[in-house]
Every structure is written in structure tokens, then in C-alpha cells.
């Protein structure tokens, strides 16, 4: 029985909400309890965006996360804003291409993933978000790569079906990143 509270944060347009949907749908496919709560309003348009995803084996109380088990930071302001909210023993996954600084805490595990560079070099365009998701499901053993494909099928609308392969490759690249 486990509950993982994940906060994904970045600029509007980096695919923060989409990344969260991928995780939530994967949880749903795996018959877990899930909730997904976005920030909404003017901050979505160019400012900061974040998204709260809870995956659990028990019914979920509040969908609002104030102490995440895992923070995925896609830019420096998001890291600085939330890094001290992460529970001791928790995880921080950050895009080290865009965040040129290190985390000062020694009670959390930090994964520095050069996601933006990997996306650029690998031909995945702007899919740094999905590379980070790949890393996340590698870090949490109860998540794993299984069902990633089915989840992407659910979250990518049919009219954008051509983006499926590249999304899957980005997730796999993140998953295999050491």
C-alpha cells in the first residue's frame, strides 16, 4: 500500500499538465486511485504552471498537495519555490539543462536530468517533460515503464496521433537515463 504525491512545476507551455495527465492515466490503467489538479488562470499563459498528481492504493482525501513526495522542477523559480516543501526522504527530479544550480538539501534524493538537451539531441523537440516523466517512473519501482504506451494512447488526442512515437521514445530515454 503506497501513496505518492507528485508536484510537477515549470513555465506555462512546457507540458507540465500533459506530463501529469500521462502519470494519472497510467495510474488509472493500473487500477490505482488517482487525482490530477492543475493550477489554472492567468499564470497558465506564460507564467508558472504546476500540477498536483496523487497516485495511491487507498481512496484519496485532498487532491491538493502541500508536502510532495516528489517534485519535478522544470525551471529555477519552481525549484526555489517548492524545494523545501518536499518531505524528508523524498525525491526531486529536475531539468539540469535549464536549472544551472544544485539543491541544498541532503535529506532528499536529487536526480539531475539534462532533459532539454536530451530532447534536443534526441530529436524529441520540446518533450523534456516526457523525459522527466520517464525518469520518474524509473525512480518509483511501483510505477515502472509498463503501461506507458497505453497511457500515452489515452492522453494524446487522435488528431495528434503522429506525436505518439516521439512521446514514447522520450519517456523511454528518460527511463533509461542513468
Amino acid at each position, binding site marked *: 500500500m503506497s501513496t505518492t504525491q507528485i508536484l510537477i512545476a515549470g513555465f506555462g507551455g512546457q507540458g507540465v499538465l500533459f506530463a501529469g495527465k500521462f502519470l494519472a492515466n497510467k495510474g488509472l490503467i493500473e487500477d490505482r486511485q488517482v487525482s490530477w489538479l492543475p493550477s489554472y488562470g492567468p499564470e497558465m499563459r506564460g507564467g508558472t504552471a504546476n500540477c498536483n498528481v496523487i497516485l495511491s492504493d487507498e481512496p484519496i482525501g*485532498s487532491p491538493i498537495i502541500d508536502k510532495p513526495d516528489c517534485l519535478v522542477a522544470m525551471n529555477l523559480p519552481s525549484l526555489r519555490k517548492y524545494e523545501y516543501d518536499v518531505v524528508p526522504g523524498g525525491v526531486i527530479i529536475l531539468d539540469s539543462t535549464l536549472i544551472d544550480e544544485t539543491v541544498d538539501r541532503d535529506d532528499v534524493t536529487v536526480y539531475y536530468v539534462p532533459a532539454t538537451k536530451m530532447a534536443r539531441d534526441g530529436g524529441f523537440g520540446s518533450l523534456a517533460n516526457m523525459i522527466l516523466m520517464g525518469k520518474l517512473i524509473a525512480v518509483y519501482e511501483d510505477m515502472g515503464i509498463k503501461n506507458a504506451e497505453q497511457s500515452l494512447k489515452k492522453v494524446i488526442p487522435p488528431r495528434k496521433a503522429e506525436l505518439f512515437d516521439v512521446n514514447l521514445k522520450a519517456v523511454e530515454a528518460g527511463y533509461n537515463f542513468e
Partner: protein
Amino acid sequence: MAEKVLMKGNEAIAEAAILAGCRHYFGYPITPQTEIAAYMAKRMPKIGGTFLQAESEVAAINMVYGVAATGKRVMTSSSSPGISLKSEGLSYLAGCDLPAFVVNVERGGPGLGGIQPSQSDYFQATRGGGHGDYHMIVLAPASVQEMASLTIKGFDLADKYRITSMILADGTMGQMMEPVELSEVKTPDYDKSWAVTGTKMQREHNIINSLTLVPDELEKQNFARYEKYKIIEENEPMCEKFMTEDADIIVAAFGIAARVAKNAIVEARKQDIKVGMIRPITLWPFPKKDFFEAAKTAKHFISVELSMGQLIEDVELAIRCTRPVTLCNRVGGMIPSPAEVLDAIKKANEGGDK
């Protein structure tokens, strides 16, 4: 069983309304409920329904008024400032005893306020909102699944009692996604012999009108309407009880506040504090009896709300002020954290704050 899908609360309302047979939606966009209108704009034309973005909220509610008079299922949705604009129409719907379905996905107020979640339209919704003596049935979902199921229930209650039912949700409920299961809805046959559908020269005219200039006639109508309200108050109150059996402290909360409170209660139980929750699902009719019964054994009540002390008044009335009731609240788009609610529970447990 239907497949579980992830949906936003707003989308769940829209899809459930369609399943309930609603084919007429009139609205005007406003955050945080615009997804309802967007969903309707996409779906209604494909199923022979009407989606119409009106020139204003006032126009939209009067279009609802018009369709409601024909006995067809009809709805509108808005958020706090927009509901204020619609309040005149809500009063007219009540004055004509018309069934209609209205959604308020609340945001912080007063005035234009903000766009973040709030529950500060509680008085407005449970006391009618517009002018005159009237009530609406007010339903308060606390999950995306309930956004759907209470929408279907709302349409049924509206038809059953010829009354407006309202979903009172907040920005969080509208925006969040959770798994939801939607299946075919069987709609019972409701008497619509009062509807304005054309006489085909075969019957007397049906007249829908809220103007009654003769005082004793208007009084009779009001008395009759309140007889109906009595039946609703008897039959329709709904609530969820969580760990109340042995509870010394009862939390009252609905919607997102109830979700947060649940976390706090689970935590408090780990610390051996006997606390439970009554979550009203109908805000009007308020589950008075459940609170009154609970007050026989519970020693302290706490109202957790996203308003400045509105729900607390109904709790005090329901328990006839026989127990202290403390307020634990945040407003303006802020939401109390589980830790804040836990603090309020601990204070109550120590007999503090009153």
C-alpha cells in the same frame, strides 16, 4: 460496467447532463467553469442539441427560462459573479415553479473577486439568491464522480418537484481530474402536462407566469410552494457520515473542504482523537436531523469552509446551538491545509476556543 475515464469535474457535469437527456445549454464563459461550455459546444451539435453562447448571463438564464417553460431539460452554468447576474432569472423560475438545472463553480468574491476556489456563495445558493421567498435544491459534490451523479440527480429532482436544482461546486472540483464511470441513464417519466407546448386546439392553454397582482392569490401560491418545500425537506436531505459513531468532535464540511478535512480526521484518529465528519451533500435541504442526532453525543462541532462563516450558521441552527461550533476557514481563493484543520480539531479536543 462502463469504462473508468479521467475527466475534469466540469467535463463530468457536462457529459452527465447529456446522459440525463439535457439537449439545451445556454451560457456565457467565465473561469473556472468554462470547460462546461466548451464541452457542450463540441457535443451538442453532434446529438441534435442546442449550445448557445448568449450575449450575457442575463440573456442565458432567460433562455433557460424559456426552454424550461416547454418542459424540456435545460441548463446553464457559471461562476460566482455570473450567478449574481442570473439571480433575477432564478427568482422568475421559482415564481413559475419551473424545473431547471444550474451550476455554480464558485470563485472568490465579493465583486469580481478572484478566480481561485471558494465556497462563499453558500448563503446566496441556500437562501434562494434572487428576490422573493423561494429555495433551490442545492447539491454539493466532493468528487468528480459526484459531479456527474449529482448532475443526474439534480435533473431528476428538478423535474420531480418543478424546482431549480443547483450544483454548488468550487474551482478545485471543476478543474481537478479523477476517474469517473458514466453509464446510460434511465430517466423516469415526469408529469409535464403543465408545459407550454402548443394546445393543438385540443386543450386549455397552459400559462407560465410569475406576475400575480392579487395579494391573496399570491399568498396562496407562496403557501403552496412552501408546502412543497416541506416535502423536499422531509424526503431529500443527503449527507455522508465519516467516522461519526463514537465521535466527540464532528467536522461539518462539504466539497473540497470535506476532502481536506478527511485527511485531517484520519491524522487526528492516529493521535487517538475521536473525531468524525458529517458532509452535507444537499446544502438545501440541509441534513438537519443528522446533525441534531449527532449533537446528542458529540461535544463539539467544527465548520470547515471556504467562506467567512456561512455553513456554520446552518450547523448551529441544526443542532439548535446546544454545542459549541468553531469556525476553521480560509477565503479569497485560499484553501485550509489538513494541518490547519488538524489544529482546529486539537483545540476543540482540548476544549478550547469556546
